[in-house]
């Protein structure tokens, strides 16, 4: 079962997201800010992370940087950032920072699930490759 960590400070969005993912068959973890998210990543090792950008304590960019710099062994975990449609700067920065993909708010759940599936497939292939070595 694939574990997805949802980092989002807006409770309602987080709840709906978690609901959707659960129904789609993912195991879900939750965090309400970047710091909590980091804790979760380090302790629970999720397969995929979906993260908002603007959050208190530690935001999405900071979290990404933190992983890339201080925990490179975890940098392979795909990050999907939630950005605003018109927030080009954040999107570009996030992608440059190492995010695998992004989704714009309001979220299109179909698109979300499709992207997750793609991630899962790639992860499986990666593991297969690694295992063969």
């Amino acid at each position, binding site marked *: 079962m694939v574990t997805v960590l949802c980092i989002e400070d*807006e409770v*309602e969005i987080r709840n709906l*997201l978690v609901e959707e993912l659960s129904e789609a068959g993912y195991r879900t973890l939750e965090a309400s800010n970047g710091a909590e998210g980091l804790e979760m990543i380090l302790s629970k090792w999720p397969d995929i992370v979906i993260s908002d950008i603007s959050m*208190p304590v530690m935001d999405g960019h900071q979290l990404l940087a933190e992983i890339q710099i201080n925990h490179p062994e975890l940098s392979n975990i795909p990050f999907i950032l939630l950005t605003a449609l018109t927030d080009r700067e954040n999107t570009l920065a996030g992608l440059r920072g190492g995010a695998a993909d992004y989704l714009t708010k309001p979220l299109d759940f179909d698109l979300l699930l499709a992207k997750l599936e793609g991630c899962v497939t790639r992860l499986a292939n990666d593991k297969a490759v690694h295992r063969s070595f």
Partner: protein
Amino acid sequence: MKVGLTSHITFVLVTLTCAAAVLLCGFAWLAAVKVDDLSLRRQADFVRQGLEEQIAALPREQESVTKWDDAFLYTKQRNHEWLLDNIGQWTNRYFGHDRTYIFDDTNRLMFAFRDGADAMPPRLGDDDGQEMTALAGEIRAVLVERAAKPGAEALGQLAKVRTIMIGNRPAIASARPILPSSARMQIEAGQEFIAISVKFIDGKTAENIAHHALLEGLHFAPSKGEDERAQVLVSSHNGGTIGYLVWPPILPGFMLLHQIAPAGLGCLALLITVVFWLGRGLHRTSLTLLDSQEQLTHHRNHLEEMVADRTAEIERQREELDRLLVHERQVNALQRQFVAMASHEFRTPLAIIDAAAQRLCRSTTNVSGDYVHEKAGVIRSAVVRMVDLMESILASGRLETGQITLKRSEGDLKAVLVTCCDRQRHLSRTHVFHLDLEPIPDVLTFDRSAMEQVFTNLISNAVKYSPDAPDIHVRARADEKTVEIAISDSGIGMDAEDLPKLFQPYYRARSATGIAGTGIGLNVVKQVVELHGGTVEVTSELGKGTTFTILLPIEFLLSDQQVAA
């Protein structure tokens, strides 16, 4: 500078005056000496001339007596007293002859007149006898000579004039032949009658000379006078010195001074007055000039001051403008930040609504009525959130342009507060609201929707900024004068430095980074509260929590008037 200029002018003027006075005195002195000299010389010339005239006059005078009446000469014995008296008086009176002698053709003295009186018998005196005789003899000799070889010269023009001493008196004597007019007197050439006239210089003659020379005190002195210039030499006919005609010399400069002094002094006085006047005028002008100069300098300095002032003022204005510009830029930055925040703030509830709606469509498991109800509730909450935000923004906009008009109506303030709390309770189920509401007057006049907004803003802030602290305290108190409403949370709190600026539009405390907010809510709160005549205060401690306190004056809330913002 003042002193220097004045003294300079004074110096020049004084020098000029002194020079003029010196010149004047010099001229006066020179003139006095020279004029005295000239005067004396003129006087001497006059005297000399007078003397010469007296000497030259005798022959001419005798012209008038040469044509004597035959009768007189012929009848020299008969009625001679009458004629002789006439002649004697006449020559004395008109010509000033002191003595007159007439010698006949035999050189015998016919008549002798002294001082106009006939001397009978006629005789020559001791003092003049010799001289007269000698003079007569000389003429006779000339006549005889002439008779021998007759010359062109007319008889009447033959005359011998002598300046001689008679006794010790200087005299002019002249001898000449006289001819009777009558043809009856047959006189042989060489046998003519001879007349001799004598004028004493020290008597009437001197008087005449003095009269014509306009002199006083002219007299004969046998020896030299003291002043060379006030004497004329009288020499005898053969070159020797008889004596001098002397008069009192002019005192140096006296005459001149006497004549010129009044005029001179007057001129000097006039000159000095004029110079003084000019000097004073110049002095005054120079003072005026100096004054003007001072004024100009003062004005120039003042100008410099004024320029400096203006420059400083311009500097100040520039600084002010700079400050305003900086402030404007900051406001612009804040506004841009606000716009970004506002769009984010709208996007979130929209995202919630969209997600909830998608869930309703997609859910494969939970399609029960409860589920739908729950999702609908989420949607509605999000809508409320958006509406509140929209109202807040609109109110803020209207406050900025001054369009807010409080619509006051009677209502229950406490009830409004409670309603807002309830609404928020529904929105944030994680938070617990503790109401501590003491009685406040039931019926107050206030703008209901505005106060709703105020309470909503404060309560939703309390919730938003205390994500990990669920307790929210709402307190209401009232005394005779004031209604006090306090809303406290135990959330993230704020830096003390943010508190003074907290109520400015778009301002967000530093501790709020990461938490979405437009920064306009508190501004709306402050303005609405102040429109109700009240105040809002805030206390906060970073990490511990925040309390907002609204104080409303009851007096205001009781009045009936509509207040325009």
